């Protein structure tokens, strides 16, 4: 089992320090992490789809868990970032006479569906599932 050192960082998220093994974990804790940091086994960190939303992790005592509200906000941020880049691509396509795979109406409908799915999600897997059709549509239109 891998041991890591965790603490709440200045952004309100969780910083996870992974020792390389050159120094003992206690030496790393003293040298590389702030006072109050704690050593935990990495297997206690969020798993599965929760593991993907690192920016939504929060630390309560010695337990790291996932804040679904933050995860939803990050999912929306990711979605909007992908959408902005794709709109630029779609505009370029239109300007040089290449037909986009989806009509503008269908593209917007897909985005609306994704946003609705993010809003109603109760798990991080549902957040990932909400984003996947957008990623697929972008890949298909590459």
């Amino acid at each position: 089992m891998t041991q890591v050192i965790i603490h709440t960082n200045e952004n309100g998220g969780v910083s996870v320090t992974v020792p390389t093994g050159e120094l003992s974990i206690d030496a790393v804790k003293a040298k590389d992490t702030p006072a109050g940091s704690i050593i935990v086994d990495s297997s206690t960190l969020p798993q599965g789809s929760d593991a993907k939303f690192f920016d939504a992790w929060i630390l309560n005592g010695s337990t790291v868990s996932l804040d679904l509200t933050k995860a939803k906000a990050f999912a929306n941020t990711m979605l909007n970032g992908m959408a902005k880049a794709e709109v630029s691509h779609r505009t370029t396509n239109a300007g040089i006479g290449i037909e986009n795979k989806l009509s503008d109406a269908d593209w917007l409908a897909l985005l609306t569906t994704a946003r609705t799915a993010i809003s109603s999600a109760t798990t991080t897997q549902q957040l990932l599932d909400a984003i996947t059709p957008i990623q697929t549509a972008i890949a298909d239109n590459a």
Partner: protein
Amino acid sequence: MAGTIVSDTIQNGAGASTSTTNVINGCAKAWVTVNGTLSSGMTLASYGVSSVTYISSCLYQVSFSTAFTDANYSSAVSSSWDSGGNSYPMIANIANNGTYAPSTTSTYIVSRIYNNGSTGFLVNYLYAIFFR
């Protein structure tokens, strides 16, 4: 048996030689390879690096086992695509108005989207090498 060899040049069997300064200054003083994810376990290989800290999906800190004499080291960093299949350029030794400036004991690695206040997924592979 401990000892010190003092020489200004080093020469191979074919007679080619170079200044030992080239050897000393041309060698990487630290490097690290990170392979894996925080939750599923990861493998780190390193020299001169004590730890890697994940601060956000877009910001990482590399701490050195032994402090540099100053913060004027050079670095090169790269990464794999993240677990969501997205690719971002990685930048080391950022200043960002001093908030994440490199020091003698650690430096920061940031992906481009961090500057946009954005978010992403953690990278599965991270590579960094430091010269001084």
